[in-house]
């Protein structure tokens, strides 16, 4: 375990997740208080990645529950394997097996299909797992209420088997894109953290960590371009995920520097909506680029550009 905030931050950077002190603090407190952490932020700023990295640095298993509208207890917690039960009963009938034994047998854990939440609670390893509940805002209110119950005691009652307690409370990370307001009761049970778009410096470090071979010039230009793009009013502002995609795309095309042609060819990496593509074409890629090549007023450093 980690003794202080610095250690967890260092460990995360070691796992190639460049982060700031506030994120590290929240995660550290989450571990210490054994409370779930609710992470919100724009798309593509690395919310899901937090859970992955946490599992990596804790050297434990990551269990992921992807939420969607209509998700219910049957698909998130457990379900009996009905076809198998029926087959078993048929078999018992043919073999004339004693009824009681069959009854017991078909409701044993062998016939149980474990879904992520049960998996996270009934974990036999010596370490607590990391449970990622991804995009909780996509699930509906009914599921949120159900989740509340699970998160408050980490125990699950299966009528046929009994109550299962978590040996180790899993470390829970919830993410939300804010497509819907979460219920206050759920928020109250969590530590809250908002992730913003990274600063220029931070974004450079992220790209360097994830795409080690990137050229210095390209790196600065791409990151600066992205910072400028995010200041504009697009329907979907590109996140860090887009920056990483874009750098890799540019490198795959053998580009060493950013110019108008390169941007035009690879616009699809940054913008995923027709309106945004149209808007950037109209406002002119050259304008954004021009600012970068002439004068860099974000960092004050001069960057050469073709």
């Amino acid at each position: 375990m980690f003794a202080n905030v610095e250690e967890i931050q260092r460990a995360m950077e070691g796992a190639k997740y460049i982060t700031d002190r506030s994120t590290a603090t929240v995660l550290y407190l989450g571990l210490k208080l054994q409370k779930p952490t609710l992470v919100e932020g724009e798309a593509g700023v690395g919310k899901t990645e937090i859970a992955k990295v946490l599992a990596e640095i804790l050297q434990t298993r990551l269990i992921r529950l992807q939420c969607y509208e209509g998700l219910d207890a049957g698909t998130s917690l457990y379900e009996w394997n009905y076809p198998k039960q029926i087959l078993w009963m048929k078999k018992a009938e043919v073999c004339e097996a004693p009824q009681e034994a069959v009854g017991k047998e078909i409701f044993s854990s062998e016939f149980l299909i474990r879904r992520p939440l049960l998996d996270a609670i009934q974990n036999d390893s010596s370490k607590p797992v990391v449970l990622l509940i991804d995009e909780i805002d996509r699930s509906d209110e009914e599921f949120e209420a159900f989740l509340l119950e699970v998160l408050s005691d980490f125990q699950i009652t299966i009528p046929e088997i009994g109550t299962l307690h978590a040996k180790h409370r899993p470390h829970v990370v919830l993410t939300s894109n804010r497509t819907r307001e979460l219920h206050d009761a759920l928020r109250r049970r969590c530590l809250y953290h908002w992730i913003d778009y990274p600063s220029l410096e931070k974004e450079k470090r992220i790209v360097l960590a994830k795409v080690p071979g990137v050229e210095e010039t390209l790196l600065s230009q791409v990151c600066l371009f992205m910072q400028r793009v995010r200041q504009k009013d697009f329907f979907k502002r590109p996140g860090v995920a887009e920056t990483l995609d874009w750098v890799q795309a540019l490198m795959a095309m053998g580009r060493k520097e950013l110019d108008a042609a390169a941007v035009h060819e690879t616009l699809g990496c940054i913008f995923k909506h027709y309106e945004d593509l149209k808007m950037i074409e109209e406002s002119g890629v050259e304008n954004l680029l021009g600012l970068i090549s002439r004068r860099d007023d974000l960092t004050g450093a001069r960057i050469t550009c073709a």
Partner: protein
Amino acid sequence: MRVINPEVSSMQAFLRGKILSHLILFARRLKERGLKITPGRVIDAARCLEFVDWSVRKDFAEALKANLVSSREEQAVFEDLFEQFWGREQKGKAKRMVSSEKGEEGREISAEKLLSICRAEEPPADKEGDNGEKANTGYSPEEVLAAKDFSQFPPEDTALLEREFIRLLSQLAEKESRRRTPASKGREMDFRRTLSRAVHHGGEILDLVRRRRKIKPLKVVVICDVSGSMDSSTRFILQFFFGLQRVFRKSETFVFSTRLTRITDILKRNRWAGALAAVSQRVPDWSGGTKIGQCLQLFNERFGPSLAAGSAFIILISDGWDLGSPELLDAEMKKLKRKSRRIIWMNPLAGTPGYQPLSRGMRTAWPYIDYFLPANTLKGLRAMGEVLEAKGARG
């Protein structure tokens, strides 16, 4: 919430100073500003001080923030108050005093104004109509009740109107969801239930369980203009909100003239008379000019993200007299359109015979509107009901 606190003694050791009492006071201040503070969260915040070096100001702030804040909006409030409360500067305090003074001033005026609106007489609106300055002069009194302008209703009929609203709205408050519910005449098979029932019969499938889509309340967002040019219809519109909020528990209501204000919570919490007073207190710019574009921009920024795309009916109520820039309005209408299931624009002038959407704001917004309806007659409301009920709007 359950509180686990194994190390009370060590906590007391470092809380010997005044930090705990300050923390509690701070939490109380946050609560006064609308944050959802519970004793459990405050205790957890205090426990956190064990784990972080709270002499480092930033860490201290982070630790409190993670525990006491639960949304991005609250984060801003927190940061503001943190500076004031734990900070050395007193700037924030001075600023607040100025703004509160302003608020009170605005409040008195708007409350008075509002009262005059609630009183049914409304002589100013009628006079204006007589002078022919407003387009609602086109109203003809021989039309049937359904077409009667709301500003002409006598006070004793308000209850009747309200009942009419609720009757109308309760028919509409449902929408299909993706969640399924068992139903004897459902179209889909529910295999899970069928098989689990078969288990009880020793594996013989005796009956088939069917299911259908579950009904889910429809989401409606009302954004209403309360600017000067709308005065004559405002009384009715407020009442309509009130009825709407009762029926659609998930609806959201905003009013704007130069600024956008959310009044959902007020309408939910209060009875009609109390709601009126509370709204007048909160809305600072009652009957100011209209900046539709700016207000929609604010709506899209602040509240847009929490709307799932295509989930909500957006009802805009305005006469379209806009003082802001048409470009902005165009851009924001476009965004709103993408987010909404349908946009319904209700215009109090639309019922006037021979009305043409010629005002600049109306012209700009026109391409994005799905339905254009009169706002100030029961007829208009019924038409809106039909729109919400229509098959094409569902699913």
